[in-house]
């Protein structure tokens, strides 16, 4: 699997996700600077977490306008698997690849902790190694992860099985509607999620619930 990680000024989980991808793919992913105008050929695009542009204005808004994002949108629409983690999820909604928006957390605080997640859909290249409805544990770390969409959008997400991760019962850290932690587009090849799978990818960091997502991608898209 050839993976490309897009690096924005202010990204800070780019290395973390690269470490995880290298472990899975046995090669270093391609790190692509936001100012580039071309995207190297790849099977997976990752928009990493962090504070692109300091999260100023709106999280992900300025990153979504970076030169490279036009290429990312094109590639994603042509079927290249695309994963937005945390700040990356915010970018995917900002550039319209995913519906909804991520508002300020209900408690108005940054929150960093492990959360329980339900894997709602296992028929995506991202989630096929998980067992449906079984709880996994993955950390979150964000200020703006409160998923919001209008009623029609929510209904269509439900109808099309696009809500792929939800927070476990009683463990919603941000006030997200329907406990949404991650969604995909209709093609099921573009995924945005607030939890950080790369932070739960080895025993020393508490387990490998996150690693399975990348392992699944390796099988599905390589």
């Amino acid at each position: 699997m050839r993976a490309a990680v897009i690096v924005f000024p202010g990204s800070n989980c780019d290395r973390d996700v690269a470490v995880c991808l290298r472990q899975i793919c046995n090669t270093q992913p391609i790190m692509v600077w936001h100012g580039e105008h071309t995207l190297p050929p790849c099977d997976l695009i990752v928009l990493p977490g962090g504070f692109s542009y300091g999260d100023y204005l709106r999280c992900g808004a300025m990153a979504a306008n970076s030169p490279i994002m036009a290429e990312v949108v094109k590639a994603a629409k042509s079927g290249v698997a695309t994963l937005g983690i945390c700040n990356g999820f915010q970018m995917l909604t900002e550039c319209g690849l995913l519906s909804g928006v991520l508002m300020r957390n209900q408690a108005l605080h940054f929150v960093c902790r492990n959360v329980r997640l339900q894997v709602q859909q296992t028929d995506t290249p991202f989630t096929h190694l998980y067992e449906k409805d079984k709880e996994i544990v993955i950390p979150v770390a964000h200020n703006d992860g409160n998923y919001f969409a209008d009623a029609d959008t929510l209904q269509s997400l439900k109808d099309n099985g696009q809500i792929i991760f939800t927070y476990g019962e009683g463990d919603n850290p941000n006030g997200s509607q329907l406990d949404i932690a991650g969604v995909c587009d209709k093609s099921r090849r573009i995924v945005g999620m607030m939890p950080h799978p790369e932070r739960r990818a080895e025993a020393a960091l508490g387990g490998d619930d996150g690693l399975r997502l990348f392992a699944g991608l390796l099988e599905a898209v390589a």
Partner: protein
Amino acid sequence: MKATIHITLKAGVLDPQGKAIETALHRLGFAQVIQARQGKLIEIDLDESDATTARATLKDMCEQMLANTVIEDYEITLHNDK
């Protein structure tokens, strides 16, 4: 030309910050507060003296980046230089 842009959440969109302000004001004893909403204020100095061009440019900025038009409305006010 100077401009002020108000960016506000569309009606019906969740406003956690506004809600929090409302609750905090009530807690401080400001019972008269019926509702509070929070938006953004962006002030821009533009090297452009024609109002029509300025307004069109600012509209572009809002559409492209300053506002997320899925959830936000924007309103541009121009101020003439003194």
